[in-house]
């Protein structure tokens, strides 16, 4: 006991306060460490981020699609009017057809090409690491930049492709890569495939490396050929990876914008207009925010269906 009663009292109070504080802190820690609380704490920042940068524009887009709304103008409610206008718009239907063709062809090429790339990359060869890193380049270079380079590659006279064709004597003059509607579609599919291939390749390679060697060994002992091992061991083990990567790729390809915007602007004569470029041209070019949002929103059902499929698949696992 302290000689000075005042000092003694205050020290006791301080000790008491500290005890309370430590009890409080440990309770707080206990609360935070509860799994249900901790997981929400971790989830909150990304959720807020998603709400602000994805949720808000999305719901604003949904809202806009029901209005006739011009740039800097006030909105007037038109219900499903914008969708009715689109249903009677031949360019809209052309862009839907183009988007489906583009997505289907590019995804198929990326999936098969990516599988091939992964199988090759899984072999042992010299400078494997650097080759793998270099293969990622198309994915790393900003799309606009690489697309400008492709513009040069497709150039009718100076471009790499036509120079190769002419110099090698295979053709007198090369094709018009971006001037002919069919070739223009092929060209944009080609560039999208080139850019998306590494995503498939690297993801499938990661999947390949998780397949236990024992499975291959026992299949070999059982007399399986190389094709048999690929068909009955490698492919089934890879299917989950291929499924998820393909779904993601379909979504990304479906919404592709930059590539077409830079390479063809949707031309010639709308033959490469995708839904994303058409939505942009209506909103920003024409200034019809409502109509443009309606085009963008028309893409959502496809995305929704894919998300449902993906969710079911993941849950089944």
């Amino acid at each position: 006991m302290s000689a000075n009663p005042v000092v003694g009292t205050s020290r006791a109070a301080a000790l008491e306060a500290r005890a309370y504080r430590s009890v409080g802190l440990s309770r707080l820690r206990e609360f935070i460490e509860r799994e249900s609380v901790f997981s929400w704490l971790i989830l909150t920042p990304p959720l807020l981020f998603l709400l602000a940068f994805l949720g808000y524009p999305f719901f604003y887009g949904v809202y806009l699609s029901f209005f006739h709304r011009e740039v800097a103008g006030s909105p007037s409610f038109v219900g499903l009017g914008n969708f009715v206008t689109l249903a009677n718009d031949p360019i809209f239907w052309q862009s839907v057809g183009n988007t489906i063709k583009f997505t289907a062809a590019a995804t198929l090429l990326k999936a098969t090409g990516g599988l091939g790339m992964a199988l090759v990359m899984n072999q042992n060869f010299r400078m494997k690491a650097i080759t793998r890193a270099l293969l990622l380049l198309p994915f790393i270079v900003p799309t606009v930049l690489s697309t400008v380079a492709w513009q040069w590659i497709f150039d009718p006279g100076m471009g790499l492709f036509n120079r190769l064709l002419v110099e090698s004597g295979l053709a007198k003059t090369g094709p018009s890569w971006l001037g002919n509607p069919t070739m223009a579609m092929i060209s944009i599919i080609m560039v999208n495939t080139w850019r998306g291939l590494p995503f498939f390749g690297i993801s499938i390679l990661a999947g390949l490396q998780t397949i236990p060697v024992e499975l291959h060994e026992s299949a070999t002992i059982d007399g399986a050929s190389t094709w048999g091992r690929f068909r009955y061991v490698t492919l089934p083990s890879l299917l989950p990876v291929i499924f998820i990567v393909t779904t993601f790729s379909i979504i990304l390809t479906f919404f592709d914008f930059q590539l077409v915007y830079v390479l063809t602007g949707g031309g010639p004569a709308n033959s490469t207009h995708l839904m994303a470029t058409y939505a942009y041209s209506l909103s920003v070019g024409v200034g019809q925010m409502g109509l443009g949002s309606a085009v963008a929103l028309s893409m959502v059902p496809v995305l929704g269906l894919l998300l449902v499929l993906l969710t079911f698949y993941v849950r089944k696992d």
Partner: protein
Amino acid sequence: MAKSTKSKPSRRDFLKLAAGAAGTVGAPWIARNAQAKPTTIVFARESSYVKNFDEHFQKVMIPAYQKATGIKIDYQIQAAGGSAVPQLVSMVENKSGADLAWVQQEWLYRDALVDVSDIAEAVGKEQGGWYDEIKSLSVDNGKWKSVPQANIGQCMVYRKDWFDEAGIKSFPETWDEFLEAGIKLKAKGHPYGMSMGHGFADNYSWLYPLLWSYGVTVMDKAGKKVALDTSETAKAVDYVRRLYKEACIEDCIGWLDPHNNKAFLTSQISCTNNAYSIMVSAKRDLPEMGKVIDHGLNPKGPNGQRYHSLVPVTHGVFAYGPDPQAAKDFLKWTMDPKQFRPWIASGDMYFAPYLHAFDKVPEWDIEPRVKPYHKVLETGKLTSWPAPANRAHGTVINRWVVIDMFSKACLGAPTKTVIAEAVAQLKQIYG
């Protein structure tokens, strides 16, 4: 309880002190903001192909304005090639960004611009009067919503050496002669490259004048009735199909605005329609080619007339800015002949003012090969002509209705079908 805190400042004392301190610190800020003059004005413009033009503005005009008024001009240069309009639309939508700008496609957001009639009318009076056609763009409901700065001329750019080689001594006077010459040049491996893709200048600048010279306009004067559905349109479409097949490089049907510059500078084409930026680039980087480039006017059509398409540069002040009057004062200052004349001169007439005072200035004589661009103002029309330049017209432009009518025909669609499709779209747009 002992009042040991008596000597300490009370809560009220603290508040008094804090208020005093805030007052002392904040007074200059309040005083500064109470003044009408802002310290900075943001001016957004697409970058110029003629570098000297932007440099003159930055190195001479900005310091001069700051010296005279104390106001700093923040010059935001937007990348050329179609990205300025999205930026402007986004600025208007968010009510932020620049105080004044080169208001491209101003029909999209005229409501967001302040009335600048006082400036435009005074400038017109002082500098010889405005060319009439530009009023269809800048004047809306009797009020000037922008002050026209200049026109970027679009003409035929051609390789004089190759034309000479093919025995074509002067640039063709009519579209038929133009086709004839093109056939000869293509046979010699020098096709034309006439842009027909989803660009915003080099496609419109020859296809619209061609249509007009066949006596056709897209809409009537009031902008109410579709005027495209005529037999003359069919003749124009048939002509373009022939020109494309017999005289042009195949690729040009999909070209955006930079593509013809690139093809010309790499000697792939003998003629295209463009601003004189191709010659500027060639003189700088390819001096040999720079010597053999020349310019010609758009040929005359069956109606005996020739036309050109205007590419206007107009400046507008945004109504939502913190101080539109300050931005207007600056705009007025730029149009004062003391500033305006040297500014225009610095661009070697690449930007040609819509003012008659500039009709005979000696700057037109510096480069004789630029002279055809002088004539563009006399025969130049807006793409909306003769209808008003409004949102509906903007929709036609941004959906490439007329351009695609021609390009589809070139790709093999029947003339009747492409015209019917274009007319249907026009009726839907103009409702």
